[in-house]
């Protein structure tokens, strides 16, 4: 804090900076590769966001292309799909959050009921497995299982005497499949943090509950859930922040012409507009910008709300 004052009194800033760097040159060298990498791959693209307000023509480059104001934003909001696409994104991420937020907590409580450390460990090892499988594989397994002719879904329905449909080709099934596979893949992994929190609950608290004759359900309600409260708040805020950034990969991979009515989300639309057929870079960048703005606003909103209610906040 007092460096600022000294700086004015003594040496100019650049001399001071040079002195600091030469005194700690190793530390500056240590951060240099990381700083360069982030500068190139994260900040340089931010400079490129301006093409959302330009008519970007590759041959002219970013700086050379002409400004067009809000033309692309107007075009998006005049297009007939804009509302459907935003709605699909919001609904899909809302459903994802609705299920993938509470279920890891439930699973952690279940695991915590086991006394034996060995049992806990085995349960956890098994529950992590799908987390290490790629999205391509998960989607592959889904389509093998749900195939009406050769998949497990097909012969179970036929055994029950029902004519199987093709679930991947039904737009009404897309969200269920998407959210279901998210749960399947990540519930175990996302429960780690809760299980760790529960194992840190002080033994005295648990003993006190036992002495008071609390039943297991009462222990869950009065000891285990409160112990996880601040972790829940932080994770909830974080997931609200990413509400609009549903993963591109899985939606893209599960998408087909028959389920587009629900599976076309902002990210897949950006990809199609920006890189499909004739690339419309500027238009696509504008849609991306709308997405990020909504995202940041949501994050700030929920962070503010949770701070106001006296809970933990991120910043």
């Amino acid at each position, binding site marked *: 804090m007092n460096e600022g004052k000294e700086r004015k009194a003594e040496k100019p800033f650049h001399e001071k900076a040079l002195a600091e760097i030469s005194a700690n040159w190793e530390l500056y060298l240590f951060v240099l590769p990381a700083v360069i990498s982030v500068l190139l791959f994260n900040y340089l693209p931010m400079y490129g966001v301006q093409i959302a307000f330009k008519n970007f023509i590759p041959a002219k480059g970013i700086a050379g292309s002409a400004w067009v104001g809000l033309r692309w934003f107007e075009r998006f909001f005049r297009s007939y799909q804009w509302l459907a696409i935003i709605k699909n994104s919001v609904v899909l991420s809302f459903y994802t959050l609705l299920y993938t937020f509470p279920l890891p907590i439930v699973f952690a409580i279940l695991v915590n009921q086991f006394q034996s450390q060995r049992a806990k460990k085995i349960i956890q090892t098994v529950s992590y497995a*799908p987390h290490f499988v790629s999205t*391509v*594989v998960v989607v592959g397994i889904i389509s093998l299982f749900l195939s009406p002719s050769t998949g497990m879904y097909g012969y179970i329905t036929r055994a029950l005497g029902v004519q199987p449909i093709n679930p991947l080709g039904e737009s009404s099934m897309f969200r269920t499949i998407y959210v279901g596979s998210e749960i399947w893949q990540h519930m175990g992994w996302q429960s780690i943090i809760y299980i760790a929190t529960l194992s840190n609950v002080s033994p005295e608290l648990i003993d006190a509950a036992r002495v008071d004759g609390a039943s297991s359900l009462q222990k869950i309600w009065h000891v285990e859930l409160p112990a996880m409260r601040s972790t829940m708040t932080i994770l909830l805020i974080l997931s609200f922040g990413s509400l609009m950034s549903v993963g591109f990969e899985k939606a893209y991979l599960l998408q087909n012409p028959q389920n587009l009515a629900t599976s076309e989300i902002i990210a897949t639309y950006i990809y199609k507009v920006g890189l499909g057929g004739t690339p419309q870079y500027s238009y696509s960048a504008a849609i991306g910008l709308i997405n990020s703005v909504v995202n940041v606003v949501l994050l700030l909103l929920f962070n503010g709300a949770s701070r106001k209610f006296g809970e933990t906040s991120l910043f």
Partner: protein
Amino acid sequence: MTKKRMALPASEAVFRAVVYTLTFLILLITFYPLYYVVIASLSSAKYAMAGEIFLWPKGFTLEGYAELLRDDSILRGYANTIFYALAGTAVSMVVTTPCAYALSRPDFKSRRWIMVFFLVTMFFNGGMIPTYLTITRQLGMGSGYLVMIAPFCLNVFNLIIMRTFFETNLPRELWESAQLDGCTNTNYLLKVALPLSKAVLSIIMLYYLVGKWNDYFSGLLYLRDEKYLPLQNVLRSILTRNQAMASQLQSGTNVEALRKANLVKYSSIVASSLPMMILYPFLQKYFEKGVMIGSIKG
């Protein structure tokens, strides 16, 4: 605890039963699909397609795997992915570790600003298209090996985990006494800090490795030349083969070809997922630590 074992009240017994049943069902749903893929990959395709496999392989065969070995595209994809994953993880570790160490040093004056510089990227980014244009045009990384290794070699979340670990696990006195002995930062990092940080190094390495191994997006976005494609992108084209044919099995469909394609699908899923499946249980003991550190300073 000197507590006599008492007979459980009825409500507690019901509670136990519900807990055990639910847990069992969850594990079954989690594990069975993966297990099924393995046994289907080892079974004669005619049983797999007739839905006659449940608990163990039927009509044992390695034909699916033999077919993979004859497929040049998947072999090349495998080799590419091993290269991308190893080289990419190495680059990422070399970039992340020294940076995390420097940021963990309380006497490093610029650390706050540098941290802010990194944190901003967690909330703001250029978006898909500006990023694509930057990488392909401004940085000139077209289709090739470089674009699969260099971009985004630093993951800010991993950086925070590592920095927090260094902050909390390396006592300040250690550095001070090493400094008195004339130890430079580089020597201290290599000879003192890193050997004490195996836990965090291995978990961050696993995160990077899994991320690279399972990456489909980069290949989709940047690679135009087939010879550079990683495993996931090759796998995707194998998995979508004959899909239209499979969804409507009509008379006249070439059933034999369909069976073979399905068998290859099962075997390719197993072959591509196996390395990560074998790896993660070895590092499991570090997961809890890694996730907890990450949550403290998000």
